[in-house]
């Protein structure tokens, strides 16, 4: 489309040679590591310890799966439940709370706007101060609790969401608001019954992108929700790394299991993920 200028025949050669070359290179660079995860997860412990990239001589996929799920008193099941609550809870809260902000920020011109915009940008740039956050959480009694971690994820992810919502609200004509106000809608009805449904596409994008971030997050659970009881799926991998020592088949089975949800999500919401990740590219 862009660079392949030249004769039609050259173009056709480029189309095939370029494509095939791309397939070969990406297979080696990107597919092999994933194949390695899958193959190692299917091997016996002894064979997996050789760390080789090879076809398993015997398939132990199901046994490994059962073993990993049962390990340490079904901790992986607990972790999946925790991670699901964490992801669903924080993303839901994030969407509602930041949609409200993005909406008012775009619609209402007040002298607070520059200050709020500054806070939003700061939220994107400033690295969270870890120990002081623990200190605040402890004094509120929400340290080492799942709802505490949910609130932390909301606080850290909010800035991105507000930016997305503000940009999208700008595309909704104000006449709609005015019509609804004429019909006697109050602020709450105006937002939840008129505006919120119109935000659907950007909401899906925000949900998908933030779910990936929260589900894959390692640092925040590590700091704010330590201990086995509240382990999230990412922490299980890290804990297994110490516990299983060289039992790579179990470790890789765990990695495989926690990667699958995001894979499924990508297949379903491919377009929204791409939209979310590239938003701002054209605007700068």
């Amino acid at each position, binding site marked *: *489309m*862009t*660079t*392949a*200028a030249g004769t039609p025949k050259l173009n056709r050669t*480029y189309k*095939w040679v*370029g494509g095939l070359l*791309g397939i070969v290179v*990406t297979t080696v*660079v*990107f*597919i092999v*590591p994933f194949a390695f995860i899958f193959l190692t997860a299917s091997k016996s412990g002894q064979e997996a310890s050789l*760390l*080789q990239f090879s076809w398993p001589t015997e398939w132990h996929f199901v046994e490994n799966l059962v073993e990993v799920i049962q390990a340490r008193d079904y901790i992986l099941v607990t972790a999946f439940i925790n991670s699901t609550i964490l992801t669903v809870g924080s993303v839901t809260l994030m969407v509602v*709370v930041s949609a*409200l*902000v993005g*909406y*008012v920020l775009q*619609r209402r011109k007040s002298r607070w706007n520059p200050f*709020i915009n500054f*806070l939003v940008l700061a939220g994107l*740039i*400033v*690295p969270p*101060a*870890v*120990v*002081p*956050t623990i*200190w*605040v959480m402890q004094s*509120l009694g929400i340290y080492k609790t799942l709802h505490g971690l949910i609130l*932390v994820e*909301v*606080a850290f992810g909010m800035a991105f969401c507000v930016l997305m919502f503000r940009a999208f609200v700008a595309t909704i004509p104000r006449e709609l608001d005015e019509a609804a106000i004429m019909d006697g809608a109050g*602020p709450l009805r105006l937002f939840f019954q008129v505006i919120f449904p119109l935000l659907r596409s950007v909401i899906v994008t925000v949900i998908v992108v933030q779910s990936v971030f929260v589900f*894959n997050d*390692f*640092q925040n659970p590590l*700091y704010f929700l330590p201990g086995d009881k509240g382990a999230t799926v*990412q922490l299980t*991998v890290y804990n297994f*790394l110490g516990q299983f020592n060289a039992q*790579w088949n179990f470790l*890789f089975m765990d*990695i495989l299991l926690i*990667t699958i949800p*995001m*894979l499924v999500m*990508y297949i379903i919401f491919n377009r929204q*993920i*791409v939209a979310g*990740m*590239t938003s701002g*590219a*054209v605007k*700068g």
Partner: protein
Amino acid sequence: MTDTLPRTQATPPEPESPTARTRRDKKRSPYPMWFYLPAAIIYGVLFVAPTFASFYFALTRWTIFDSEFIGLDNFVTFFSEPYLFQSLIHTLLYAVITSGLKVVLGLLFAVFLSSQIIARGYLRSVVFFPVLVSAVGVGVTFRVLMDPFDGLINNVLAGVGIDGPGWLTDPDLALFSVAFVDVWAGVGIATLIYIAGIVAIPQEYFEAAKVDGASAVKSFRHVTLPLMRPATTTVIILSLIGGLRSFALIWTMTGGGPGFSSDVLASMVYKQYQAGFYGLSTAGNVVLFVLVAAIVIPLFWFLNRKEVDR
């Protein structure tokens, strides 16, 4: 001074009515300020307050329960202990390498993946896919692949007769190996951003270049590249912020080692936290904060300004 005084004295009676009116408007506004409230509480309590608190606690010897003010001692320790100070240098190196490579590779991939080739959709998905895998998963996988003796990478190298290095065990190399894996995992986002930028370029530009007899290389150099500025800005800023704060990948791949050779600020903060030096850990956090602000804010300003000039 003398000029302004009478005026300020004269003003009070006048603004009385406008403020009263805006106050009444506020009550009736269909966009009430209290919509900010839920977000403001969460953000203020769990992000803004700890950030401000960090500036104080960085100056203390601190055990969560009580703190003792010790002035700049933590920072003196930080800058005088080589193993602490090095984490600052490593952070910078890591961020510059990863974002530089992401810009270059992302642009190359994007140009390639938006040209007329077969299996384009498939290739785009494959390049993007690592973005969805957690840093922990990527880290553990590459820890095994980079094993100096049995790892796949060195096995392949041995097959061609090259004696592969200890990617993660050689102190001179560990940080770069992790940075390389970071690029592997994150180049998909850069590529996507660039593809979005390329798609937005009107076809007429390329046609005009072609009519003028520009070669593929020339049309890339003089059409694509200048128009990719906004996308490049985004990629650089995003990957710099990510690179400077990077923790999970480094922690799972090397744990900052061997020794302190791949320690960055984020991992140093975690280590000091684990060791119970909360004040020092927070000081590390403040250093990270200053570093990110000192790099990203001027860069943001500079890159956006250039855009306006054009």
